[in-house]
């Protein structure tokens, strides 16, 4: 690990001021320190935000929840309000990492975790995300875990997390305090970005920006499902995951929010897929059309070609479960 200066932030304003002067935030550190040991990341200055007063889950005026940026994954998943009102979020968090990591990983840090692309991690290899302009070895290399949607000619990395996928289906907002002291809310769908020509950028944060919370809107009606497919039964990243919130009205689909993990550089959401489902009676044919719509632009790169039929099957299975009202056929 390269040497760095360490300082503890006294409050959010101090943290954003230090970050604006080129310091890197550390909170749980589970991803950052791993990357620093490998020298994939080598910040000169770390500002420790782990003791800021951002570790509470509180009720919002409109009946939602405000999850402080330093609430650990464990505490968020175990919070009784989250479990009862947003079971999807508890399920998604519990599907990720290990007990030890969830005890350290924070809500804000989890949103910022980096891709697990093997070539990003291997400093002997070119990688446009790690070293812009150096090339992408994944494109024609081993790319089992890589993107099938929204990738670019410069990067096919995926966002690896589970939590943000659930938050995307729940229409969460990310609360960010800038170096100017202003706080802004960003819909989580706009927080992560596609790689395009600048894959070094994972998200919209700029120097000095501090995530202070994630805001969950009031709970919505309907069944909530998080389905994750991975290479091991536990403690592995998603090859494909689906977060679904589906409400039925009699025999028809009243509303559907669907977000996908493991497929793109960000949690993937396709409003056309959701629109196609709403107002219709559930059927295998309808679910097939939804999968066609979702995967119309999907592109495999060799080792990850399997993700296209896999995603189709996972989506159809989740929709089947989500729309099953228990009524006799």
């Amino acid at each position: 690990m390269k040497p760095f200066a360490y300082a503890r932030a006294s409050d959010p304003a101090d943290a954003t001021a230090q970050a604006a002067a080129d310091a890197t935030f550390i909170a749980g550190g589970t991803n950052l320190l791993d990357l620093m040991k490998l020298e994939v990341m080598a910040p000169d200055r770390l500002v420790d935000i782990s003791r800021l007063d951002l570790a509470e889950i509180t009720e919002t005026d409109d009946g939602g929840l405000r999850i402080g940026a330093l609430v650990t994954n464990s505490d968020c998943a175990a919070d009784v309000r989250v479990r009862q009102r947003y079971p999807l979020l508890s399920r998604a968090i519990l599907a990720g990492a290990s007990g030890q990591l969830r005890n350290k990983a924070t809500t804000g840090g989890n949103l910022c975790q980096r891709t697990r692309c093997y070539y990003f991690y291997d400093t002997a290899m070119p990688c446009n995300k790690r070293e812009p302009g150096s090339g992408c070895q994944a494109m024609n290399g081993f790319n089992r875990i890589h993107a099938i949607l929204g990738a670019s000619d410069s990067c096919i990395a995926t966002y690896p997390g589970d939590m943000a996928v659930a938050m995307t289906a729940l229409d969460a907002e990310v609360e960010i305090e800038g170096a100017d002291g202003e706080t802004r809310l960003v819909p989580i769908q706009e927080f992560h970005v596609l790689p395009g020509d600048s894959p070094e950028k994972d998200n919209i944060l700029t120097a000095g920006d501090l995530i202070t919370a994630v805001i969950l809107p009031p709970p919505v009606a309907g069944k909530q499902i998080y389905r994750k497919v991975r290479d091991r039964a536990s403690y592995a990243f998603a090859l494909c995951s689906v977060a679904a919130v589906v409400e039925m009205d009699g025999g028809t689909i009243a509303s559907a929010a669907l977000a996908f993990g493991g497929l793109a550089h960000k949690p993937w959401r396709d409003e056309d897929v959701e629109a196609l489902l709403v107002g219709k009676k559930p059927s295998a044919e309808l679910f097939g059309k939804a999968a066609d719509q979702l995967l119309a632009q999907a592109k495999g790169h060799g080792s990850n070609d399997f993700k296209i039929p896999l995603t189709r099957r996972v989506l159809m299975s989740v929709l089947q479960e989500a729309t099953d009202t228990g009524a006799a056929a």
Partner: protein
Amino acid sequence: METTELTVNGKSHRLEADSRVTLLDALRNHLGLTGTKKGCDHGQCGACTVIVEGRRINSCLTLACMHDGDAITTIEGLGEPGNLSDLQAAFVAHDGFQCGYCTPGQICSATAMIEEAKAGWPSFVSDDLAGPDALSDEEISERMSGNLCRCAAYPNIINAIRQVAGGQS
């Protein structure tokens, strides 16, 4: 150099160390507590698991200087020869190891995991998010998935943990 006050197994220590020193390296190399093991050093194997402020964490993935004032429990603090903790005794009784390298991490992890379950925390395999009534073998496996055993003593590790957790096979 950073100055950090750590309370390890009830004893206070004043650590003077480079900011890069992980909690794991501080315990082993600076405080001489070599019960905590370095396996992968990347948070993947769980051999370095210790209990910080009541929570199990990977000590390899955290900086010692971030733990100023924290109370830390390592395997040495759970029990000692002649006065083993319940889990330590159960690992012996059930032969929950072969080479033993992962064992301190397994036992620290399981010690805190049992408390998590008692607090009603659900897991990925819990049918009901209200949490399980008892720790089934499936629940134990899922909750312990952050601790690898290269000798694959898993069946006996589960037997040992189940005995202490009071779950049903």
